[in-house]
């Protein structure tokens, strides 16, 4: 069962200026991190349960905590996955989703099954681990609600020697 109380309590402790401005000793800072992590786990379960109830079926939800540094094992390895984006604001928001992926071409579909424009951005760095390609698409999110987008990797088109075709542009 999920529980948001441990994260609530950790967040309450972290309102102290030692946590906000860094005036704690290192072992205290480590303990703040421990309390946050301990609270995050059961809160993830709570959110997963809520999403499963709202969507009408249970799924193995994954929360990518290191998205800010372009790390998300699921999107970087799976050929098909779903992206559920929750908007806590009381108004509609258009938000650019950025997910690290493996190289390739992807098709992104909105909640109504329509293909939405997407792009895989490859960064000008030789270190593909530090800067993996990122899938971008704009998500339209309802007020205080969520939208589910599906992402599928499609095989690259390989030119045939005997049947030349125009090279398709990545127009999804």
């Amino acid at each position, binding site marked *: 069962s999920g529980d948001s109380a441990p994260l609530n309590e950790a967040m309450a402790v972290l309102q102290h200026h030692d946590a*906000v*401005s*860094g*005036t*704690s*000793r*290192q072992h205290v*800072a480590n303990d703040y991190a421990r309390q946050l992590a301990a609270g995050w786990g059961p809160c993830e379960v709570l959110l*997963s349960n809520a999403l499963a109830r*709202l*969507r009408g*079926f249970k*799924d*193995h*939800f*994954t*929360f*990518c905590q290191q*998205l*800010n*540094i372009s790390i*998300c094992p*699921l*999107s970087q390895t*799976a050929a*098909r*996955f*779903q*992206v*559920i*984006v*929750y*908007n*806590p*604001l009381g108004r509609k*928001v258009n*938000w*650019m*989703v950025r*997910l690290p992926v493996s190289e390739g071409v992807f098709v992104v*579909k909105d*909640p*109504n099954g329509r293909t939405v*424009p997407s*792009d895989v*951005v490859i*960064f*000008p760095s030789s270190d593909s681990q530090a800067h993996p390609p990122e899938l*971008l*698409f*704009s*998500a339209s*999110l*309802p007020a205080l*609600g*969520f*939208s*589910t987008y*599906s992402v*599928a990797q499609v095989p690259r088109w390989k030119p045939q020697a005997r049947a030349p075709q125009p090279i398709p542009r990545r127009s999804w």
Partner: protein
Amino acid sequence: SPALTIENEHIRATFDPDTGLLMEIMNMNQQLLLPVRQTFFWYNASIGDNESDQASGAYIFRPNQQKPLPVSRWAQIHLVKTPLVQEVHQNFSAWCSQVVRLYPGQRHLELEWSVGPIPVGDTWGKEVISRFDTPLETKGRFYTDSNGREILERRRDYRPTWKLNQTEPVAGNYYPVNTRIYITDGNMQLTVLTDRSQGGSSLRDGSLELMVHRRLLKDDGRGVSEPLMENGSGAWVRGRHLVLLDTAQAAAAGHRLLAEQEVLAPQVVLAPGGGAAYNLG
């Protein structure tokens, strides 16, 4: 070579091709053009001097001189342009880089900075800032928020309730920035939204700075009994500054909505497989 630009229907950002630094921002809806030079500097942390033995530390910010040193006078840049994003990747040094980003439809410029681990092998503690320099005549005034709610006017070398004898010209003008800081000349306003609480100031007219990272070698003697020097994952920081240029009259409508979206940002959850699409109905 010609100046490098990224732009959408609302904003154009121009970069100096010689230095790779941000040079100019234009709000195309309002036809506002502001020269803005943005780059990173660092203050050398005081370890105590003839005036006072107070060292810079976790509680105390005390640089040993007023003028910060540039991390680099130029940045190595790469441009990424696709239909969904335009980015200028700036590399200032081995420990300081930034991506300046613009999405279609976006009314602000996004600066995603990465700083650390700050080298301290030279035994100098360093306090790194991102500084925006403009020609705005701000008359010693700048504005910071009070916990994302009230905006407070700050005046350089001045306190509203007593006659100030300023003995720390840098630290004495630093204020908490919870979500935003801005400068204005009454016509044009440059606003910077932060993604976390930071310290900020305007130490010269038209200038605005935010402290992004610190690494210090001395304890400030105020109770922590440790220098502010993390060696684990805390040695690296990555964050974002959202920059808005607007008329002084229209600016609040823009930064209030954007700050709300930044604080209550959408949450992404993934699930494997194709699954059935969720119908909004």
